[in-house]
């Protein structure tokens, strides 16, 4: 049953494309480096490492930009791999994205390490242009330019995704399953991978285009400060871009759950009306709930803030509930074989689901006014990125490392993998709880130095961070050592 399902769905790749493996290897290596930076930050906050404040903020900038970048790179590899089984994508454009990504990373690294830029990955106006002498306009421009180059690469990739989907389905409406959603369900709705990719390409193309506009405006302002930007407009554009971009990483990576788990259980994940409705609703909701990042901005129109809260409450439900319930019913009493890939994917569903709870709490206006500038916020986004998005990509890597066949004995994991899994799950949970508890105690975020009463949370966070780093090192090393299997025949 499982093999039949796999065979009928796998049409494009006999072997895993090398660029996909290159993306995953790059993402794996960079995530480890960024985790080291994150560990240093928590050690410094806990008073166990002496970091100069400017170094702290440089590392914070690199950690944020790097993690967002590799989240996008890893998850786009998942999307491209599975979408490529249904539509004809361009390998050249995928490679171009990887090259532009690496060029952008070099520019960002240079701006931070040599130029001292430390304005955080959000580059929020007017901070890049008003550094109080800490960095130059050139350093800020290099950082902003690096983001522009990376954004250009992703834009090209999404345009190619759009080309391929339009070529196969004619319109994005059909690719979102509108005929089946609003009419008779003839059972010929596009696969979830196509629906999800269409949703992501819509939101991220709009997000990146908005991001490109505010980045160019920032560049102009850096060199001609007389061209001022309305700070509220800048914040809206910046957070719309950032919010959509980081959310899209999860929506791309979750395709691994939709595609891989059914191969273990032998139960195809159908594009039912409920699934289609959920993904369609998310197109609108992800783009309209971003004002929850601006709940402390009193100058925002009240209706926008109210909408931000209401839509945030609603937006977690469609895809998330459909995915969580869908995953649980898919695996329940399926008699499936558990391994690292399936385990990590199910953990990711938990992480995504659990991460939404503190997110929704923070999206409540009266709570946000107290909690938004505390460690509660990194607590919630680390929950669904560290325990949600990352295990999706890691599960995909293990899936490939087993040759893409759940039943293959070759490449089966060893004891160290299983230990790594449990260390990752338990320490990851401890790590995010340390953030959330610190936030509950009022510890501010983005502070290089903490008061004595906040140190226990920081130190616990640092300990768990070290364990998560060790477990991730095992996962990435095992993937790199089994690149041959990952490259091998899939179907």
């Amino acid at each position, binding site marked *: 049953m499982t093999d039949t399902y796999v065979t009928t769905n796998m049409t494009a790749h006999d072997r895993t494309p090398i660029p996909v493996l290159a993306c995953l290897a790059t993402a794996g290596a960079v995530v480890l480096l960024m985790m080291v930076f994150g560990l240093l930050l928590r050690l410094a906050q806990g008073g166990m490492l002496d970091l100069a404040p400017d170094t702290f903020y440089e590392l914070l900038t690199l950690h944020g930009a790097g993690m967002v970048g590799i989240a996008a790179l890893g998850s786009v590899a998942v999307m491209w791999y599975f979408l490529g089984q249904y539509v004809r994508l361009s390998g050249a454009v995928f490679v171009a994205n990887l090259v532009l990504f690496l060029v952008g990373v070099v520019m960002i690294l240079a701006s931070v390490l040599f130029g001292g830029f430390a304005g955080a990955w959000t580059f929020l106006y007017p901070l890049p242009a008003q550094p109080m002498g800490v960095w130059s306009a050139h350093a800020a421009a290099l950082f902003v330019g690096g983001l522009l180059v990376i954004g250009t690469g992703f834009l090209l990739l999404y345009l190619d995704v759009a080309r391929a989907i339009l070529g196969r389905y004619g319109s994005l409406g059909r690719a979102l399953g509108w005929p089946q959603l609003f009419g008779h369900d003839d059972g010929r709705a596009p696969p979830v991978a196509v629906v999800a990719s269409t949703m992501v390409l819509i939101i991220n193309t709009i997000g990146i285009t908005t991001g490109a506009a505010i980045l160019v405006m920032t560049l102009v302002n850096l060199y001609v400060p007389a*061209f001022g930007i309305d700070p509220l407009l800048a914040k809206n554009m910046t957070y719309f871009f950032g919010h959509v971009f980081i959310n899209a990483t999860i929506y791309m990576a979750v395709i691994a759950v939709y595609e891989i788990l059914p191969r273990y259980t032998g139960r195809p994940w159908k594009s039912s009306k409920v699934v289609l409705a959920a993904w369609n609703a998310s197109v609108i909701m992800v783009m309209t709930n971003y004002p929850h990042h601006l709940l402390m901005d009193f100058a925002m129109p009240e209706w926008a803030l109210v909408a931000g809260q209401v839509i945030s409450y609603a937006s977690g439900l469609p895809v998330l509930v459909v995915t969580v319930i869908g995953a649980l019913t898919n695996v329940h009493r399926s008699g499936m074989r558990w391994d690292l890939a399936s385990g990590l994917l199910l953990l990711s569903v938990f992480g995504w689901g659990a991460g939404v709870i503190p997110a929704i709490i923070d999206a409540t206006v009266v709570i946000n006014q107290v909690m938004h500038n505390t460690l509660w916020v990194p607590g919630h986004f680390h929950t669904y990125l560290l325990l949600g998005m990352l295990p999706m990509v890691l599960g995909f890597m293990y899936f490939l490392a087993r040759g893409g066949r759940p039943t293959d004995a070759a490449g089966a994991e060893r004891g160290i993998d299983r230990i790594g899994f449990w260390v990752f799950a338990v320490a990851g949970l401890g790590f995010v709880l340390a953030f959330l508890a610190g936030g509950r105690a009022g510890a501010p975020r983005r502070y290089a130095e903490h008061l004595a009463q906040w140190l226990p949370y920081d130190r616990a966070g640092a300990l768990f961070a070290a364990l998560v780093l060790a477990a991730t090192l095992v996962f990435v090393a095992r993937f790199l050592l089994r690149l041959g299997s990952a490259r091998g025949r899939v179907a």
Partner: protein
Amino acid sequence: MVVNLLPGPGRWQLLAVYLLLATPPLRDWLEAGMVMHMLVQLPLLAGLGVLAVRRLPARLRNRLDRCNAAGVPLTLLALFAIAFWMLPRSLDAALNQPAMELAKFVSLPLLVGAPLALSWRRLPAVGRGFLWSNLLSMLVVLGWLYSAAPVRVCTNYLVDQQQLLGRGLLLLALGLALWLAGQVLFGDSPRRAAQATG
């Protein structure tokens, strides 16, 4: 001679519209305001170039296609010409110097409209999409630039004109984005779309 290059029933109408745009009453009216100048007259002139290309003899089109690999060279030519006419000082020069006004009337159809029309279908789908995305984000940036400029950027127009133009550019970006969204969301039949996105 130019008219002889354009066979077909529409050539005299095209020439008439072109001459009409050049006649002082209409030209003065279109150039009296910055919004009409940038958002109506310049696109109309480029549009005439697009329409003229549709009437070119097939043999001439084939010759032009041969030196326009994948549509890139002529697209670049059009982009540089657009960049020149986006500069406020170019608009000023066109209003102050007859030679620049003549250059505007010649270059927009010949160096913007015609090259874009010759290249558009030859560009890969990703390239066309990139140009649309770039146009949208640049319209927003220009809209902001004209709205936020601390000085008068054209000596021939007042500040309120450039601020109006800024808002006009933002509205244009919004309108284009909605039109594009409608195109891709409701789109075509899969077979025709496959041919278009080839």
